[in-house]
């Protein structure tokens, strides 16, 4: 079998290097090679958003990125959202608004919502729904998720 590729990245602010096959997605690399299993696989074709990560300031579905493409990239995953033992306002808002049931889609929603609030601190309900349309949730009907994002926006603005 041909050789694996050596990839150097920054993940959640830490230098991380790993070996991968070119056919492995970034999602596989995060989960199977690096052990960051907070990023989830729901469809493996970019339609559910459970594998959303932030690369260089832009959210993408990591199932549609090759691991080898991560060379030199700055990646944020769900494991890097909290500040040590202090949860991010979005994480608190999700908990206090009961915005998760099974929780499998939650990491993707939090990564996506965080990117939204970073570029639009006070989004309308429609803007939230549009931004999050690439993240599927089957449990909640989205109501409490949208409210949690609105709540987090308020918390972030007050902070």
């Amino acid at each position, binding site marked *: *079998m*041909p050789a694996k*590729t050596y990839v150097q990245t920054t993940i959640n602010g830490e230098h991380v290097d790993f070996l991968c*096959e*070119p*056919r492995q*997605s970034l999602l596989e690399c995060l989960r199977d090679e690096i052990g960051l299993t907070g990023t989830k696989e729901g469809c*493996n*074709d*970019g*339609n559910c*958003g459970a594998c*959303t990560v932030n*690369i260089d300031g*832009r*959210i*993408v*579905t990591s*199932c*549609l*990125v*090759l691991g*080898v*493409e991560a060379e030199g990239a700055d990646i944020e995953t769900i494991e890097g959202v909290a500040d040590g033992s202090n949860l991010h306002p979005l994480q608190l808002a999700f908990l206090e608004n009961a915005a998760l049931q099974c929780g499998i889609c939650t990491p993707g929603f939090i990564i*996506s919502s965080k*990117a*939204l609030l970073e570029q639009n601190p006070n989004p309308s309900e429609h803007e939230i729904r*549009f*931004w*999050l*349309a*690439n*993240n599927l949730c089957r449990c909640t009907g989205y109501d409490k998720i949208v409210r949690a994002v609105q709540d987090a926006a308020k918390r972030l603005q007050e902070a």
Partner: protein
Amino acid sequence: MKWIDFEKPKTVEDAVKLLSDSGGNARPMAGGTDLIVQLRVGDPRVNADVVVDIKSIPELNELSYSSSKGLTIGAAVECYKIYGDANVNSHFSALNDSATLIGGTQIQGRASFGGNLCNAAPSGDSIPNMIAHGAVATIAGPSGTREVPVEDICTGPRQTLIGDDELLVSINFPSNGSGFGANYIRFIPRNEMDIAVAGVGASVTIEDGKFTSAKVSLASVAPTPLLVKEAGESLVGETVSEEAIQNAANLAKAAAKPISDMRGTADYRKHLCDVLTRRALNTAVERAQGAS
């Protein structure tokens, strides 16, 4: 997924060499939102051993505008850069109709018009829009570059006239005069994350209340995105009116040759061509009149 090799050339020349050296087994990749899925499911139409990541090539990342040269969008420029670009917003705002429709937010972080064109899906949401704008593709190959109107690129489902040893470099949109307006709309059962059941790109130029030029292009109703010349031509010289627009919509509907599948029946798709052409032209007219 079967084994692939990964290359990341820095120049157009290196990319073309990689493509031509591979004997048809290499595929350029921009955002990969179609290609990676196709490789993963073993799509027989995409039998690549080598993936050539073209995102490090400067020409493919170009996003520039001048009134003389028009707008140039490099083949790898992601959708979010398109709708975030000041020049696009002031001179080619209708391109955002497509850039904000392709996939969702995450997909728009990777997907490009160039990739959408090379993927050549009948439903590609940027292609009818590019056709309606009269866009021209620049393609590099072993023997130099050539320019091809976008409407001629797609030759069948997932088939283009871009050779295995060629690379789409950029897409150029000529500057529009005053009185220009365009629009792309598609019909999907949901409001996001769907493949067009039918889509229509339309552009018009209006002077003194009359159409001086017009284009209508369709998605998802033929083996390729379709320029309906007769629909656009029917408007030229006509006074802007509901009748003229309905006539063009009728011609678009007549030109559609859709199939029935899980996304809609052929009859429904033809019907949608009428509805969407009318709506797209009306929006294009509004924009043209707002711009003039």
